[in-house]
């Protein structure tokens, strides 16, 4: 059986199983778990090299592999595993139902599209007390924002050891005290050894940004022959 499925289009293993069971073109209640397991494992096989399969897919694959092996056993040893198969079928049926339901909900008439709710101006007020218009959802979302803001600040604080654009400009000045009138490779002047790759990356970024800054100020020329070729730099006189 030829399967042409793109894994990124599927929202998880159940979604993929559902698609595969549709290909069997039978009632979902009567699908062959054995056949399904074969197709699924085949799919995993085909895609394992090119796409990083998520843990969910692999968990599902091992469950199906287990089921498949049990289903291949002689009849009298199968009984206890019917539960497992039954459970998977039920989950599939249920998930199919939820997908249908979600579509049906959004097929309903919608406010703003099929009807409008009415709110008119009044001459008086309903409440005698001033109560702010805040919902529980507002409160929770507000807290999430504060919480995330805290995280950002913490992350920046951890990384104070990195280089800045100012550092890059300082290096450029030092380089041009030595080099004159020649093209040379920008990154050749970075130290070869850094104590962390993060630090090395930040050095590259700061030097590049500094030189772009100098180009826009009219002090430098940059040149790169091809993609990924060395970036060459020269002082503009």
């Amino acid at each position, binding site marked *: 059986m030829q399967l042409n499925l793109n894994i990124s289009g599927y929202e998880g293993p159940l979604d993929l199983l559902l698609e595969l069971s549709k290909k069997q073109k039978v009632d979902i209640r009567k699908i062959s778990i054995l056949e399904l397991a074969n197709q699924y494992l085949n799919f995993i096989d085909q895609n394992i090299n090119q796409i990083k399969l998520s843990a969910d897919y692999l968990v599902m694959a091992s469950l199906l592999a287990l089921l498949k092996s049990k289903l291949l056993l002689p009849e009298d040893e199968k009984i206890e595993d019917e539960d497992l198969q039954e459970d998977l079928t039920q989950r599939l049926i249920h998930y199919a139902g*939820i997908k249908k339901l979600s579509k049906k909900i959004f097929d309903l008439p919608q406010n703003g599209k099929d009807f*409008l709710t*009415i709110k008119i101006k009044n001459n008086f007020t309903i409440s005698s007390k001033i109560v702010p218009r805040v919902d529980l959802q507002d409160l929770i979302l507000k807290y999430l924002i504060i919480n995330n803001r805290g995280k950002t600040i913490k992350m920046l604080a951890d990384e104070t050891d990195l280089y800045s654009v100012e550092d890059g400009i300082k290096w450029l000045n030092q380089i041009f005290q030595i080099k004159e009138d020649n093209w040379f490779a920008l990154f050749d002047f970075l130290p070869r050894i850094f104590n962390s790759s993060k630090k090395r990356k930040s050095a590259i970024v700061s030097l590049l940004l500094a030189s772009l800054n100098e180009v826009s100020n009219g002090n430098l020329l940059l040149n790169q022959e091809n993609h990924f070729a060395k970036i060459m730099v020269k002082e503009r006189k």
Partner: protein
Amino acid sequence: MNVKDIKNLVESLIFSADEPLSKNDINKILLQYGKFDLDKILNELAFDYKDRGIVLYSSDNKFYFKTSDSLRDFLTIQTKKTKNLSNAAMETLAIISYHQPVTRAEIEKIRGKPVFRGTLDSLLEIKWIKPAGRRETPGRPVTWVTDIDFLKHFGLKSIKDLPKVDELESIIL
């Protein structure tokens, strides 16, 4: 204040309230004028508007006016605003609406994969879902239910009016 005036008052209250009003909300206001049969008043109002361009409607037993369904085809032309929700959010919404109150772990079990980051947030943001206490199981996870804005958006009187799907009927989570 006579009965006719009270009916007018109730009508104008519902029309001009910021949020749909419950009978309790309305009764609190009527209280200062005497005792009235609010059910009767609401029934009369609903009847008055039965064949008009707008109708008296309720979601979750809270009352508001909306445009009549019979005008659906004509009004569609005028507006276009619809919510743009991800597939994951739509499925999550369907699960919450059908299984509420439901925990995140239960949603994940049904979907067969983790609930995407931000999925609950996006539903929370448009106020279609809200937290509703915790399940008394280990870890005491928060449970989720749909909020009135969800019912209002789809013109549902109650969660029982949701479309049915045969596959879901016989299954217990």
